[in-house]
């Protein structure tokens, strides 16, 4: 009996020493992929993919920032690509292994956050705008409407300092990424003045309440705006006249990855028009992949909410991560607004 156990142990040890089965560890935002995306890749390559999701950028950063998280691929938003690269967390991309890179729209081939796409490829993108009930006349046009007392306090802004400051800063004619003390202070005072007109600070969850009619106007992501307008036709979505914030989520390979070759294959797979179109459809968001967009049904392809026309899109500004001092300034101002 003893000996048999011993032999089983030896066999087990031998099993362990065999080459590790090839596996890819992918860490993405929750609800941000199509059902078939991962299984199809597994079928086509015979490789197992361990796919997990996170709810916030901070959750992901906390896991990968030590450099031994075990993930191969993560999907940070554009604001974190440069900081992660500076921290040495990202592996450089080998464009020769990404033949589908040419499918991206021109403006996503050389974005400000990662010039020449040395470390990241754009995955999906979006913007923040205004979802409103069209019974409100005149219809809201910009962030300035959040300072008007004509909605009976049935107005919300997102529960996120970046988004709320972006709105106030844009209204005052500044950059969404401003960390100038004077501008932050001005935005803070403006927001404290607007707060009595707001019902709540509430993020994507507000969609239900706009659809149900509790809330007449809400700051919200275009993606949520699209879903709400699908549910109720008398809702509208406006891209604010003063300008608005844009974000793009990007696929990166971590420097710690032990499967860079496989990871490149997954990245190239995500760049395939059929794959990217399928994801954009499944999560109702905009794809930066021009070839994928051409595959979408016409009403999705030409959706003015997800793909605003060029003159509107030109008012958008990409988020950047603020350095420590600016971030701290904003957080204190945010606490002041919230406790006012």
């Amino acid at each position, binding site marked *: 009996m003893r000996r048999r156990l011993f032999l089983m142990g030896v066999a087990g040890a031998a099993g362990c020493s065999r080459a590790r089965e090839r596996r890819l560890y992918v860490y993405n935002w929750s609800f941000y992929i199509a059902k078939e995306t991962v299984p199809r890749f597994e079928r086509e390559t015979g490789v197992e993919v361990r796919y997990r999701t996170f709810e916030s950028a901070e959750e992901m950063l906390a896991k990968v920032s030590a450099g031994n998280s075990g993930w191969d691929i993560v999907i940070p938003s554009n604001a974190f690509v440069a900081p992660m690269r500076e921290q040495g967390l990202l592996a450089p991309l080998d464009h020769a292994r990404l033949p589908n890179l040419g499918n991206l729209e021109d403006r996503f081939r050389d974005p400000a956050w990662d010039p020449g796409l040395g470390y990241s490829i754009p995955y999906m993108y979006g913007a923040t705008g205004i979802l409103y009930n069209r019974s409100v006349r005149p219809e809201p046009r910009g962030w300035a409407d959040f300072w008007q007392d004509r909605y009976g306090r049935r107005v919300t802004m997102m529960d996120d300092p970046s988004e709320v400051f972006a709105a106030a800063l844009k209204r005052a004619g500044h950059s969404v990424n401003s960390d100038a003390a004077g501008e932050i202070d001005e935005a803070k005072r403006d927001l404290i003045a607007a707060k009595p007109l707001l019902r709540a600070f509430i993020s994507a969850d507000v969609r239900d309440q706009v659809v149900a009619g509790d809330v007449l106007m809400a700051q919200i992501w275009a993606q949520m705006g699209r879903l709400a307008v699908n549910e109720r036709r008398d809702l509208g979505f406006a891209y604010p006249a003063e300008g608005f914030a844009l974000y793009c989520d990007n696929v990166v390979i971590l420097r710690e990855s032990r499967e860079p070759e496989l990871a490149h294959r997954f990245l190239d797979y995500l760049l395939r028009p059929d794959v990217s179109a399928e994801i954009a459809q499944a999560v109702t968001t905009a794809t930066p992949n021009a070839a994928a967009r051409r595959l979408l049904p016409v009403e999705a392809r030409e959706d003015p909410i997800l793909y605003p026309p060029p003159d509107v899109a030109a008012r958008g500004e990409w988020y950047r991560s603020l350095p420590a001092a600016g971030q701290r300034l904003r957080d204190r101002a945010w*606490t*002041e607004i919230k*406790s006012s």
Partner: protein
Amino acid sequence: MNRLRTWFLAPAATVTVVLFLIPLTVILGYSAMTRGAYFGLGPPWTLANYARVFDPLYGAVLWRSFVLSAVSTALCLTLGLPLALFISRSGKRRNLYLNLVMLPFWTSFLVRIYAWIFLLRDTGLVNAFLQKLGVIHDPLPMLYNDGAVILGLVYGYLPFMVLPLYATLERLDPFLIEAAADLGARPATAFWKVTLPLCAPGIRAGAVLVFIPCLGAFLVPDLLGGGKSIMIGNVVQNQFTTARDWPFGAALSLVLMALVMLALLAALGRRSEDLL
């Protein structure tokens, strides 16, 4: 005998060290570090995070949290004491009622708070019902105010008040009440002069069990308060999320812990020994 005792204590001691002391030490370490340029943290070591805690802004938030938590605790006591009395005098049905008190724990707190949103919002069940009855014309603003925050806290932590109260009341010798009656005390007098003083340990335990989690609450003020007025728990939470300032969040939570400890010792005085 002594060795046996050591062996029986070992698992609890291990759990305390692994799940409590080690994380606390980590937080202590974090609180003396410097935040990274964009995220993360590291050397140099500094006390600057503690200096920032003593900003009057955070003092004001802390005061607000104290007030909201104290009101919630008082309400829990007012609701919990009659309930615990009722259960302790319900004979065979005690266990059923106790299980009912604990029933909400079977579902996630987050889900239950979302349920409150569905109940309280303008187009929610309560307003729709009142409007149908013709009691009100315009919906009552029940959600996204301090009242909703207190409601959420009382709802969430009431069982923590009821259970220790029940535990003391159950042990209460009924002959003492009888003796009070024999000596001429009316039921109300007997309650004030006999029952209440005897269940003081339960009241203290319940108050502590409710007050402390209320003070650290962040879900309820976010979801039911609509993020319009924050509690100190939200400030701490923000440091670990949007602000990405872990060292400051760690310092803030440690100072908060120390203040709560001091407040408890001061409030309960010598009697805090039964709790700590």
